[in-house]
């Protein structure tokens, strides 16, 4: 029968066990993941199973890294994610966090756009480091994402997005994520992208400031192929700041919406 061992097709005898596979292909492996789930005990395998053998602490070769990184994914998901291109408009609190999630998932290519540089006031919620203060956010994020998953193709646009350049910058995306801070910028991006690319999904966010209950942040469908994450009302304003938890929750709602769209599922449905 045919199975996948560290993403390579292998022809093995029927009824072979995961322990026999470990001994045959990587006897020094101390972690065996079968179909996305660690199997501490030996188990019988069947046709089409996916086995990943990992030696803890070992940095694998580039070609093997991808298979090992995706070992805990639901089987079948990775190939579809790898084929997708996602645009991220704004890489502040929302954009930097959801970009990290999408890179870890193995989304094939990302287009990052932002005009800003990293500042100390960003570090309370954005995925940057002290030694990146002063760098354009798109450059800092590109560096951080490469350290997480070098397989992701990243292109960047360092500048202000407006109704003229939005269609050009995001011409190649399958899905766009709106991740701006300013309400006005959000409105311009949504209006422009939806008019130019009505057939492509757009995931926006509104209402995530403060530290109200995490449970008030939801994903809703608000138009054809148009999804909105947030509580809809909690604006950043004097007396209500932007905090890492709710910003991250909204960002991960957006990332999960993207994941579901790539997999052909409606983001807002159970």
């Amino acid at each position, binding site marked *: 029968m045919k199975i996948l061992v560290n993403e390579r097709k292998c022809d093995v005898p029927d009824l072979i066990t995961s322990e026999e596979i470990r001994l045959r292909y990587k006897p020094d492996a101390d972690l065996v993941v079968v179909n996305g789930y660690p199997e501490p005990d030996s188990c019988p395998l069947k046709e089409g199973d996916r086995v990943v053998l990992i030696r803890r602490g070992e940095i694998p070769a580039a070609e093997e890294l991808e298979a090992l990184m995706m070992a805990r994914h639901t089987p079948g998901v990775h190939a579809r994610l790898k084929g997708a291109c996602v645009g991220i408009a704004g890489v502040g609190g929302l954009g930097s966090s959801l970009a990290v999630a999408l890179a870890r998932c193995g989304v094939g290519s990302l287009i990052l756009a932002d005009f800003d540089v990293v500042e100390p006031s960003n570090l309370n919620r954005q995925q940057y480091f002290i030694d990146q203060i002063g760098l354009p956010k798109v450059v800092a994020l590109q560096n951080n994402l490469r350290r997480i998953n070098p397989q992701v193709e990243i292109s960047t646009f360092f500048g202000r997005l407006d109704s003229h350049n939005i269609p050009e910058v995001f011409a190649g995306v399958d899905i766009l994520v709106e991740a701006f801070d300013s309400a*006005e910028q959000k*409105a311009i991006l*949504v*209006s422009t992208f939806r*008019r130019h690319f009505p057939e492509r999904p757009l995931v926006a966010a509104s*209402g995530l*400031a403060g530290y109200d209950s995490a449970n008030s942040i939801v994903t809703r469908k608000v*138009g054809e192929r148009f999804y909105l994450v*947030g509580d809809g009302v909690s604006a950043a304003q004097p007396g209500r700041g932007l905090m890492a938890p709710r910003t991250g929750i909204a960002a991960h709602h957006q990332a999960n919406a993207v994941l579901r769209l790539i997999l052909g599922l409606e983001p807002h449905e159970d």
Partner: protein
Amino acid sequence: MDIIINGKTITVTTGLSILGVLDHLQIAPQHVAVEYDGKILAPDDFGVTRVQDGGRLEIVQFVGGG
């Protein structure tokens, strides 16, 4: 005349523009994306597009923070 905004019927003055409707609802026009009878509008169209009786508006409002 009656128009339908996000599924709810409201009565407005005949001949209002989108901008007029937003003003009536006390919504800042620069913070919204608007669809009128299934057509996605550019913000520049808000002042020149007149709503007709029975017209359907979908208005999505944004608040700041990200």
